[in-house]
């Protein structure tokens, strides 16, 4: 029988039962590989459930540093009888199945084209521990110990990770180390160690960090100066607000008084949450809310108010599978249109598309400057794949000389000096008016904020010319937004390319890998990663420079393509959609397959050159 052999390049998938304590053991496994200098990219595939339903943890070991999901499984750690059949089926031919053989299973439950590695985990646990919870928890550590022998993970690295995790908790440290060696020793003695899949120390991790996107967003909000956060729990965004609480507790206390330089309110719903954030933004505090698609739907009326009354506020949308309740624990990029045009009437909002936790940090911090400069709601469009998975990424960086851009604030001094204050007056030609904060001046600068139409001096007006004047200024402001947003990132092909590809957000790691694979296959494509909406003019130029441009997205309806066509006025015939929307993260294999198929169908020689 063929056996897959690979060094530092394979996929291990853990099939577990939710709530069995497997998550921390599996993360320990992933971290130990990182500590050996080998990049890994783990993904949680979990149900909307607390206990009992199946959950998976997929670790891609990738010396080359490809952090997208690869697809396929080389080693299955099958710990969940409920999903056994499908788990076994998913292993690639020549792959490996690690399982608990405490109880005999009929032969029909196995395959003959894979290597079986049975270990009596339950038996070992029952013989060693009497407490049922310990039996459960240490079973996970025992299999990590066995895997360390099977895959040649350095046990010292695992011990070091334990000692960091259980600093000052000697008893816990000792019992975990004991369980680790229990598994490792059994494997060395009884199992075919090492397997064809194995690890070799490398030096490919560098100074990179291992963070999830939601924590990175929260940290970005701390560094970006957010002082008011209002939120309502919703998967997959809840951990944004929870991480913000954690970071604020550590970093935002007043040393002298012990009081907090922040306010966090768990609202009664998403409507109240965005309302609180808008109230705070109106009154000059940097404020945000974090939510997911269903929350955006609920917030849309308020988003229109903030757009029309011109109030800075940041919304973090950790996208999940829609529509309706959809797939709460799966990933998609399907809120792009809902956010770009959120609310009734003619509305448009700036969107930011981070590709990984590092950009979650950077763009969230930056979003507060953008929101205050533009006096409008700004959306940070992340998703479950980035938000809830730990990802290897560049370390967070901050420029200590940086001052926050508080935007155009009309001050007491300027009012005293006789400035002509019109809340909706375009003094500088960029569409952005000046605003006063409540309480600025005893007799000047007060105005009435409203969602109804008004003239340049904030007086109620339903007159057509006033309305048009205001709406056109808002368009100018939106044009100004282009220069404030993160610019697209171009990846030029090594050889001249007639095809282009546009992608964004969490598609990035799979795309990088796909472009490498395609280049190896002789297919050269220029790629542009879009990082903000409204799109920079460069995006239109990019499409014009290619005979065809792929737009790769994780939604059914080609939502970014719709924006390119309607907002950048790009001819839709020039755009070819590549859409992945089953709720799993897009893979390089999928992109390579789709692009190759399209390109051969279009023939490699573009028509206009052939004629």
């Amino acid at each position, binding site marked *: 029988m063929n056996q897959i052999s690979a060094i530092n390049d394979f996929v291990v998938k853990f099939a577990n039962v939710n709530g069995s304590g497997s998550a921390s053991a599996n993360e320990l496994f992933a971290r130990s590989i990182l500590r050996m200098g080998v990049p890994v990219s783990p993904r949680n595939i979990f149900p909307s459930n607390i206990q009992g339903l199946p959950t998976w943890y997929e670790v891609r070991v990738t010396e080359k540093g490809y952090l997208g999901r690869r697809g396929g499984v080389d080693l299955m750690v099958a710990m969940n009888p409920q999903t056994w059949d499908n788990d076994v089926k998913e292993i690639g031919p020549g792959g490996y199945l690690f399982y608990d053989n405490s109880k005999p299973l009929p032969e029909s439950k196995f395959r003959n084209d894979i290597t079986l590695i049975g270990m009596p985990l339950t038996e070992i646990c029952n013989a060693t521990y009497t407490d049922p919870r310990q039996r459960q928890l240490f079973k996970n550590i025992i299999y990590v110990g066995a895997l360390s022998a099977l895959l040649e993970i350095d046990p010292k690295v695992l011990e070091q990770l334990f000692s960091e995790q259980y600093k000052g908790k000697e008893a816990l440290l000792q019992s975990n180390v004991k369980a680790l060696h229990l598994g490792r020793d059994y494997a060395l003695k009884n199992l075919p160690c090492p397997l064809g899949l194995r690890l070799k120390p490398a030096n490919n991790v560098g100074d990179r960090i291992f963070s999830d996107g939601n924590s990175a967003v929260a940290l970005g909000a701390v560094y970006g100066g957010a002082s*008011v956060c*209002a939120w309502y729990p919703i998967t997959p965004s809840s951990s944004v607000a929870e991480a913000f609480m954690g970071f604020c507790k550590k970093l935002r206390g007043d040393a002298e008084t012990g*009081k907090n*330089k922040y306010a966090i309110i768990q609202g009664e719903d998403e409507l109240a949450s965005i309302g609180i954030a808008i*109230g705070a933004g109106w*009154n*000059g*505090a940097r404020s945000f809310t974090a939510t997911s698609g269903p929350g955006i739907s609920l917030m849309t009326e308020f988003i229109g108010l903030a757009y029309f009354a011109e109030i800075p506020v940041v919304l973090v949308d950790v996208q999940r599978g829609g529509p309706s309740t959809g797939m709460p624990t799966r990933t998609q990029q399907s809120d792009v249109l809902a956010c770009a045009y959120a609310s009734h009437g003619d509305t448009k909002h700036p969107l930011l598309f981070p590709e990984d936790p590092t950009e979650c940090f950077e763009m969230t911090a930056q979003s507060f400057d953008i929101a205050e400069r533009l006096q409008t709601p700004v959306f940070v469009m992340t998703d479950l794949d980035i938000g809830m998975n730990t990802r290897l990424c560049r370390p967070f960086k901050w420029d200590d000389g940086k001052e*926050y851009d508080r935007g155009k604030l009309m001050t007491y001094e300027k009012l005293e000096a006789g400035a002509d204050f019109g809340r909706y007056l375009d003094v500088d030609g960029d569409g952005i008016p000046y605003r006063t904060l*409540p309480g600025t001046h005893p007799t000047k600068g007060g105005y009435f904020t409203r969602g109804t139409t008004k003239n340049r001096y904030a007086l109620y007006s339903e007159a057509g010319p006033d309305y048009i004047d205001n709406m056109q200024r808002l368009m100018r402001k939106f044009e100004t937004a282009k220069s404030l947003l993160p610019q697209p990132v171009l990846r030029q092909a090594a050889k001249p390319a007639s095809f282009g590809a546009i992608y964004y957000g969490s598609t990035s790691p799979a795309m990088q890998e796909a472009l490498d694979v395609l280049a190896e296959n002789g297919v050269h494509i220029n790629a542009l990663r879009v990082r903000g909406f409204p799109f920079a003019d460069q995006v239109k130029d990019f499409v014009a420079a290619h005979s065809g441009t792929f737009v790769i997205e994780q939604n059914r309806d080609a939502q970014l393509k719709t924006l390119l066509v309607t907002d950048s006025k790009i001819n839709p015939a020039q755009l070819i959609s590549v859409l992945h929307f089953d709720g799993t993260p897009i893979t390089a294999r999928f992109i390579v397959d789709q692009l190759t198929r399209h390109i051969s169908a279009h023939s490699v020689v573009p028509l206009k050159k052939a004629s």
Partner: protein
Amino acid sequence: MTYLAKPKLHHPSLSKNQAGYTRRDYEGKISTLCAGCGHDSISASIIQACWELDIQPHRVAKLSGIGCSSKTPDYFLGNSHGFNSVHGRMPSVLTGANLANRDLLYLGVSGDGDSASIGLGQFAHCMRRGVNMVYIVENNGVYGLTKGQFSATADKGSKSKRGVVNSDEPLDMIGMALLLGATYVARSFSGDKKQLVPLIKGAIEHKGAAFIDVVSPCIAFNNHAGSTKSYEYVRQHNEAVNRLDFIEDHEEITADYAPGETVTVHQHDGSALRLKKIASDYDATDRVKVMNYLQEHGARGEVITGLLYIDPDSEDLHEHINTVDTPLNQLGAKDLCPGTPALEKINASLR
């Protein structure tokens, strides 16, 4: 309503309060509500209360939702920032504004449609949180701006102008405010300025969630026979439990009451409120007794008014979440950004 704008110039002989403002400085734009609307009387009472308390108008933020009542902040305190938000959502916007700057005075103005129907949830939760504010519901039992539909506070059995009898139970906002932890709860009548002005003053000085339900007849759609929110009905059924004689530190007590007729409530922040008792058995500091009293008397069809409940040891949201004394909107990068050394530590913990 009138189309005749008052001249902006003030007569030099107009008297000024201790903050240096005349009463006219507390006025706003000309009201666009119907002549005789109860809401305009409430606006006048707010103006009077702020003037008498020497409040600097620009230190007030006035927030409202949508509806006739929510238009009124445009008609008083013209130099204050106002925010006419979305229907039923004023409480959340006010909460956020209050979080951003704890130093201003927050005045929320709403109606019975805005607070008892679409905004019931937000009304409830801002009371629970103890947001430091004055929350006035201008309660007329009817949707005026959309021409006469029943609101959720319309009494069961009351009749609309079109002759329809309301079959739904009314929503009791006072009862809800009491249950949800409001620490200053009052009811008044727009037509009784003598009662209303001190109640607004007391609410302004109170720390925490202060709620005033003001029955305010809708002259156009709910002032007919068969309505329980008409001028006539309320005048006939109004039963005040007390009269608030607000005491300020600098104000001498001039009125003379016989012993036993008054009770003084000392608040935690040092201020004191003196209440002249009307119902001798009424104790406005006992939440449970108050709820019982209101249920008993309400069942007899009485409209109980006065300072119904006060918690002298009230707290507010900022105390609950322990925010710094400096308003959050005045903190800059120095206060808010932890800088590179802290970030390096975080990076190190993620390797």
